[in-house]
């Protein structure tokens, strides 16, 4: 069954030849499947049918387009990947299952589109009535005849508190996940892992209550110390007022809150590092840390970023804990950018006022704020993904390896 044509169709310089190969490749795949009794005649019928269909499509759309379709993804390894997709389509179970999977994907798109359109529809009338700049104003007076509201202050507090929370939580979470997977004695690892999972279950209200009742008093001296050492930077300047309900306290509590989430996912991912990678590194004489840096971290990078994004999503959108902790500045005093002042985040603002959504205009203003919140989350998410995909060779290596592995394997199967 060795077919030199079939091994790497996109590599061929002229598209026509690759296009002609297409049905043959399918035939090959089905021929492989054929001998297995499960497939029976039906599968072969399907296979023939598919081949015909493919041929029809080819004649309709012309060989060039077909060839380009096969080669669109450009990278050599993806070609064989596609063949794999085409192969088993004939099976009824496959059709059902892929239909279900596709349906779920479609459902997700539908849900989000529906939520987005709906919220936009609710927010737009209020935004149109807004008498001040929605993006740059710090005033929030959405009720009445002259609604004036802007998100500048909310945006600042939300973002700064989440950034601080992430700066604290992510390195520690990675450390904890590494500790559980590769450093701790095995007997300790499992209970600790359970304990961390358990903490993901502590409701955020409790983090809030614990934060304000037990943790904030202890953080007070830390705040005083930081502000006296770094007070010349506006960010760390301590305004008069209480030490308890400040952005910094909320950030630390948020960090503690997202720690279990990030840790739990990172741990699962670090554990999945293929033994071959780790062994390889160690066999080359790497120290444990070098093994982790060369094998574990690059392998888990995408996963850790995803985990951090889940954590960030939670930090940005956290409602009750922030609400309990943060002191809200009054409308008279000038706005303060210090992390040792009070503030309000999008979510805490919405939740604090949810009881008084008595008119569509007011509700719309808050929904608009909510929309901004998830635009922010989304932008951060995308940015993180782009960074992961582009900049880090460490990430590409295992992926490419996997794909390369895939193509080698299919080739092996064919020849």
């Amino acid at each position, binding site marked *: 069954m060795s077919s030199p044509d079939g091994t790497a169709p996109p590599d061929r310089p002229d598209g026509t030849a690759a296009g002609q190969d297409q049905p043959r490749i399918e035939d090959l795949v089905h021929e492989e499947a054929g001998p297995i009794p499960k497939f029976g005649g039906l599968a072969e019928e399907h296979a023939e049918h598919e081949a015909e269909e493919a041929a029809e499509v080819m004649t309709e759309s012309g060989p060039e387009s077909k060839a380009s379709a096969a080669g669109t993804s450009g990278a050599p390894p993806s070609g064989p990947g596609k063949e794999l997709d085409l192969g088993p389509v004939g099976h009824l179970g496959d059709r059902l299952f892929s239909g279900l999977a596709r349906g779920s994907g479609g459902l997700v798109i539908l849900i989000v589109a529906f939520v987005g359109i709906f919220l936009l529809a609710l927010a737009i009338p209020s935004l149109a009535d807004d008498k001040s700049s929605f993006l740059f104003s710090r005033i929030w007076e959405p009720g009445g005849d002259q609604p004036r509201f802007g998100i500048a202050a909310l945006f600042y507090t939300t973002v700064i508190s989440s950034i601080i929370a992430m700066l604290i939580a992510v390195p520690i979470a990675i450390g904890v996940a590494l500790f559980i997977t590769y450093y701790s004695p095995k007997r300790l690892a499992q209970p600790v892992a359970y304990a961390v999972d358990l903490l993901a279950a502590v409701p955020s209200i409790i983090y809030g209550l614990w934060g*304000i*009742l037990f943790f904030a*008093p202890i953080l007070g001296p830390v705040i005083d110390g930081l502000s006296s050492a770094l007070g010349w930077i506006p960010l760390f300047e301590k305004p*008069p*007022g*209480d030490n*308890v*309900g400040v952005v910094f306290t909320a950030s630390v509590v948020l960090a503690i809150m997202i720690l279990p989430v990030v840790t739990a996912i990172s741990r699962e991912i670090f554990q999945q590092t293929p033994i071959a990678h780790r062994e390889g590194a160690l066999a080359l004489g790497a120290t444990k840390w070098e093994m982790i840096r060369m094998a574990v971290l690059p392998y888990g990078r995408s996963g850790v970023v995803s985990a951090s994004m889940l954590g960030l999503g939670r930090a940005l959108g956290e409602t009750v804990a922030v*609400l*309990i902790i943060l*002191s*809200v*500045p*009054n*409308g*008279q*005093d000038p706005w303060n950018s210090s992390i040792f002042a*009070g503030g*309000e985040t999008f979510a805490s603002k919405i939740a*604090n*006022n*949810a*009881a*008084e*959504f*008595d008119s569509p205009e007011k509700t719309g203003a808050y929904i608009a704020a909510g929309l901004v919140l998830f635009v922010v989350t989304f932008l951060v998410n995308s940015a993180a993904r782009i960074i992961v995909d582009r900049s880090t060779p460490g990430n590409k290596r295992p992926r490419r390896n996997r794909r390369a592995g895939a193509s080698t394997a299919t080739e092996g199967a064919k020849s």
Partner: protein
Amino acid sequence: MSVNSLLRVGSVAVASLGVLALSACGSDPTPSGSSSPSGSSSSAGAECPQGTLNAEGSSAQKNAIDEVISKYNEKCADVTVNYNPTGSGAGVKQFNANQVDFAGSDSALKPDEMTAATKRCAGNPAIDLPMVIGPVAIAINVDGVSKFILDGPTAAKIFQGTIKTWNDPAIAKLNPGVTLPSAPISVFFRSDESGTTENFTKYLQASGGGAWTGAPAKKWTGTGAGKEKSAGVAEGVKSTKNSITYVEWSYAVDNKLTIAQIDNGSGTPIELTADSAGKALAAAKPAGTGTDLALKLDYATKAAGAYPIILVTYEIACTKGLPAEKTALVKSFLSYFVSKDGQASLTDLNYAPLPAEIQTKVDAAIQAIS
């Protein structure tokens, strides 16, 4: 589906069903009172309907209505009353959206709300029934100060931010013999929109002598740091030295805060008691039309012994138009609430009971519901 996955799904299902089945033996606690639930029908069987009553609204009356529900259930065990203290605005909104059977609110229905409520009641007007008097305390936390006196203008200046330190001459003048620190005053306010804020700012405006510049509103316009809900401001004052706030009486008492006595202009400082708060209500004038019993409070009252900072929380119900069984439930419960039994339990919770004449009026209005 493979056997394996069937097994997996099956075991999940069994496990969850098991949880449900195991715990399907829950029950309501037996009332701590003398009557057992089974014998309850004998005590007031004729008056007790059956069913569930859902209500929502003011958090200021939460403790009062919880207590009354508890007492009412000792009498009528077959009625379930749920009250959700999400806030006055939410209560009115849910009532108008046909989500609850009656609402609790710290302020009477406004004209546009009344329009919506009339629609909800199938074309019949809704009614404001004053039910509980909730005094608002000015609570402080200053070391060594256990008796503290304020008058309207000074309070307005403190909450406006024009008086900034505890040893300000205006405060010292009202509190001879009390040593006050030179520390700045930390003011805490309610960061959520609240009927308490609205009533308190009404007082500051009425008796502040012009020192309070904002218009009375549910949203705070003065100085200070905002905390969420009554619990938040009470906790803030409790944990912060040299601080002050306004909060429902019960929170001030429960958190063991020092409560300021108010000089309403009559010359003697008035301590906050159920009695002195009740006297302030006597100065109120009816503001509603027909059977509607909305009250207009006189925050500038100078009546001797009247503690002027109070709020009245109403129950808002349909005069007509509810399904018959709901009407019976609403009437039964609300008439218990306004009865002597119902009101008597409120003093222990740091509310003030309604004066007798208002009780009679409210009861008559409830009986007129059909």
